[in-house]
C-alpha cells in the first residue's frame, strides 16, 4: 500500500481528486458528524428531555448504540458483527464512517484510515456543531459571550507575510545542564517549554527582550530560553542567566542548595507576571494569569441554620493532600480523582463559626466548608504534597513516597461548582455543555526521587503524542506507560478545547491611543493659538504704520 501525504489510503486519495464525487462524500461525512454531535447533546439531558430515536442496523434491526454510516447511501449498521462491512462489499460501496470518532473505514484497504483533510473537516464540523450548546448558564442567567469559531483562511496579508519565511518544526528538545543542584530548575523549565500556551506566546515573540524595559526580567529570560531551545544547537544548554535572574528575584533562595521545585515554579510564575507589560493586581490578563489562573469557590455552611456564605478566591495551581484527616487511606484511593474528591468534599470546621445570618444565634456554631472549582484555567498544575512538615523545623520533614495514579486525560466536570451544586447530577454523569468541555490532557510530569535532603528531580513531557524523559542534560524517548508509572510530584494538564472571549482591545492599548489623540488635539490648538498671535502682531504692526 503506497502511502500518500494527505491520506493513508490510496483509494480515498483518488476520491479527493475528483471534486464532484468528493464533495458529495464530504457533505455526507459532515452531516453524519453533525448528527452525532446533536444526538449526543440531546441525549445528555442538557437539552429538553425527549425521546430521540436512534438509527437501527440495516442488517439485523437492532438499535445502534454505536453508529457506523455508509458514505454512499443511507445505510447504517453494526460494526462488531460485521454488518456494515458486509454491506460495503455487497453494494460495492467503498467508505463508511464511525459517527462517534469520525474515522473512516475503506472497504478496499479493509482498514481504517487517516486523512488530513478529513481530520480537519471533522474538527471544524464538530466544533461548529458543539458551539450551539456551549453557552453555560451560571448561577444568575448570565451567559458569557464567546468568540464563535472561524476556521483560519489565509488572506492576502497573511500570504505576503509568510512568503519567503522558513518553516521549522514546532517542537524542539534540548537538555539542560545541571549547574550545581539545579535539577529542580531544569525540570520546571522543561515544563514551561512544553506548555502549549507559553510556547505559542514566546514563539510568537510576544515578549521581545529588545523592547523590554524591565531590569533582570524573568520574562526576557524565558524568551531567551525558548530561543536557545529552538536554536539549531542540540547540545545541552546551561540556563545560567535564568538562574542568576531567579536569585535576583528571590534573594532568600539564592545559592546552590537544592530547592523545592513547586516553590521555584510558583516564584517563577510570579516573576513573569510582574515583568509582563500591562499586568495588574486584580483581573490580570498577563500570559501567566491567562494560562494558569482559575477560581475556587469556598462555601461555608452554618450547620444550625443552613445559611451558606460563598467567597471566590483566585488560584494558580492546586495542591493536593494524600489523605484526609484521620484515616490512613486505602491503596485503591491513591488516584488523582480521589485526591480531587477529597479536595472538594465538605470539611467540618468545628464549633468556632460565627454565623452572619439573622435567623441564627450567631457565635460558636458548627460549620462546614467546601471548596469547588468555579473557573477552570487553560492549564492546570497539580502538586502532590509529598513533603510533610511535622514541626516547624524544616529538617524534620518527611517525604511521602506513596505512588499516585494519574490519568493521561482528566475530566474536571465533577469537581466544578456547577456540578457540585447538584450532587445527584454529578454522580450521574450529566454535565452541561459540549462533550469534552471539561476535558484536560496531561502534557508534563515532574518526578522526585530520593528523600528530602538528597533527592533528584527529573521530568516527562510530550509533544503531540510522543513522550520524552528529561534528566538534566539527558533527553531520551519514552512512552506514555513509563510516564504514568513515574513517581509524580507535579502534573500539568492542558484543556482540550479553549474558549475565547469576544475579541476586545486591552484597556491599556485604548488608553494609549486616546492619550496620543489628545496630544495631537493639543498640538493643533497650540498651532492655532500661535497663528492667531502672529496674525495679531502683523495687524498691530500695520495699524501702527497708519
Amino acid at each position, binding site marked *: 500500500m503506497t502511502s500518500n501525504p494527505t491520506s493513508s489510503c490510496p483509494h480515498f486519495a483518488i476520491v479527493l481528486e475528483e471534486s464532484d464525487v468528493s464533495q458529495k462524500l464530504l457533505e455526507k461525512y459532515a452531516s453524519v458528524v453533525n448528527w452525532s454531535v446533536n444526538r449526543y447533546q440531546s441525549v445528555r*439531558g442538557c437539552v429538553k428531555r425527549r425521546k*430521540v430515536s436512534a438509527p437501527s442496523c440495516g442488517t439485523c434491526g437492532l438499535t445502534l448504540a454505536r453508529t457506523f454510516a455508509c458514505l454512499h447511501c443511507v445505510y447504517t449498521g453494526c460494526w462488531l458483527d460485521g454488518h456494515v462491512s458486509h454491506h460495503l462489499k455487497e453494494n460495492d460501496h467503498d467508505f463508511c464512517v464511525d459517527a462517534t470518532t469520525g474515522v473512516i473505514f475503506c472497504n478496499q484497504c479493509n482498514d481504517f484510515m487517516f486523512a488530513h483533510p478529513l481530520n480537519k473537516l471533522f474538527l471544524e464540523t464538530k466544533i461548529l456543531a458543539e458551539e450551539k450548546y456551549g453557552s453555560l448558564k451560571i448561577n444568575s442567567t448570565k451567559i458569557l459571550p464567546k468568540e464563535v469559531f472561524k476556521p483560519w483562511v489565509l488572506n492576502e496579508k497573511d500570504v505576503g507575510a509568510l512568503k519567503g519565511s522558513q518553516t521549522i518544526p514546532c517542537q524542539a528538545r534540548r537538555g539542560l545542564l545541571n549547574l550545581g543542584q539545579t535539577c529542580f530548575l531544569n525540570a520546571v523549565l522543561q515544563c514551561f517549554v512544553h506548555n502549549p500556551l507559553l510556547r505559542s506566546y514566546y514563539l510568537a515573540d510576544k515578549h521581545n527582550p529588545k523592547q523590554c524595559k524591565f531590569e533582570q526580567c524573568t520574562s526576557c529570560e524565558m524568551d531567551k530560553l525558548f530561543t536557545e531551545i529552538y536554536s539549531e544547537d542540540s547540545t545541552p544548554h546551561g540556563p545560567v542567566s535564568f538562574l542568576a535572574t531567579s536569585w535576583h528575584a528571590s534573594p532568600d533562595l539564592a545559592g546552590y542548595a537544592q530547592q523545592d521545585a513547586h516553590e521555584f515554579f510558583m516564584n517563577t510564575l510570579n516573576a513573569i507576571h510582574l515583568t509582563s507589560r500591562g499586568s495588574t493586581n486584580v483581573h490580570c490578563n498577563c500570559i501567566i494569569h491567562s494560562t494558569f489562573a482559575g477560581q475556587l469557590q469556598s462555601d461555608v455552611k452554618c450547620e444550625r441554620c443552613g445559611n451558606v456564605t460563598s467567597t471566590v478566591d483566585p488560584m494558580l495551581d492546586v495542591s493536593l493532600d494524600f489523605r484526609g484527616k484521620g484515616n490512613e487511606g486505602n491503596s485503591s484511593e491513591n488516584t488523582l480523582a480521589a485526591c480531587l474528591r477529597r479536595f472538594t468534599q465538605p470539611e467540618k470546621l468545628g464549633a468556632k463559626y460565627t454565623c452572619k445570618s439573622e435567623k441564627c444565634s450567631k457565635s460558636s456554631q458548627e460549620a462546614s466548608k467546601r471548596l469547588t472549582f468555579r473557573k477552570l484555567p487553560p492549564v492546570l498544575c497539580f502538586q502532590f504534597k509529598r513533603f510533610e512538615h511535622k514541626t516547624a523545623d524544616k529538617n524534620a520533614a518527611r517525604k511521602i513516597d506513596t505512588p499516585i495514579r494519574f490519568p493521561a486525560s482528566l475530566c474536571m466536570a465533577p469537581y466544578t461548582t456547577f456540578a457540585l451544586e447538584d450532587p445527584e447530577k454529578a454522580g450521574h454523569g450529566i454535565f452541561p455543555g459540549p462533550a469534552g468541555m471539561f476535558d484536560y490532557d496531561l502534557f508534563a510530569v515532574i518526578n522526585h526521587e530520593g528523600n528530602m535532603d538528597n533527592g533528584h528531580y527529573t521530568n516527562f513531557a510530550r509533544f503531540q503524542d510522543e513522550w520524552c524523559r528529561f534528566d538534566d542534560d539527558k533527553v531520551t524517548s519514552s512512552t506514555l506507560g513509563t510516564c504514568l508509572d513515574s513517581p509524580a510530584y507535579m502534573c500539568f494538564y492542558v484543556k482540550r478545547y479553549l474558549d475565547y472571549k469576544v475579541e476586545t482591545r486591552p484597556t491599556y492599548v485604548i488608553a494609549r491611543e486616546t492619550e496620543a489623540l489628545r496630544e495631537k488635539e493639543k498640538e493643533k490648538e497650540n498651532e492655532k493659538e500661535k497663528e492667531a498671535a502672529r496674525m495679531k502682531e502683523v495687524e498691530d504692526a500695520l495699524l501702527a504704520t497708519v
Partner: protein
Amino acid sequence: MPTSPLEVDAFYTQLQQRIVDSGEWDRIRFVLASKLNEAGWSDDLRHRSKERAREMKPLSFQTLYDEVFPVAHTSLPLAVKREILAQIRHWVDKQFL
C-alpha cells in the same frame, strides 16, 4: 415473560431500543469510561496499542484489535465490572415496574 428463543430475541431488541433511545446507554457508558480511566485501564490500553502499532508493519486495525482485545478483557477491574452490571440490572428491573 418471554420464553421461546424468538420471543427472547424480540424482547432483547425492544430493551436495546429503549436503553439507547432514553439516553441511559450513553449515561452508563460515560460512567464506565470515567471509572476505567480512573483505574488506569484506559491509559494502559492506549499505551499498549500505541507501542504495538509502532512496530506493526503493515499496520492493520483488525490485527491490532485481535491482539489487544483479550488483554483488555482480562484486565477489566472486577469492581468496575460489578458496579456497571449492577447499574444495567437496576435499569432493566425498573422496566418491569
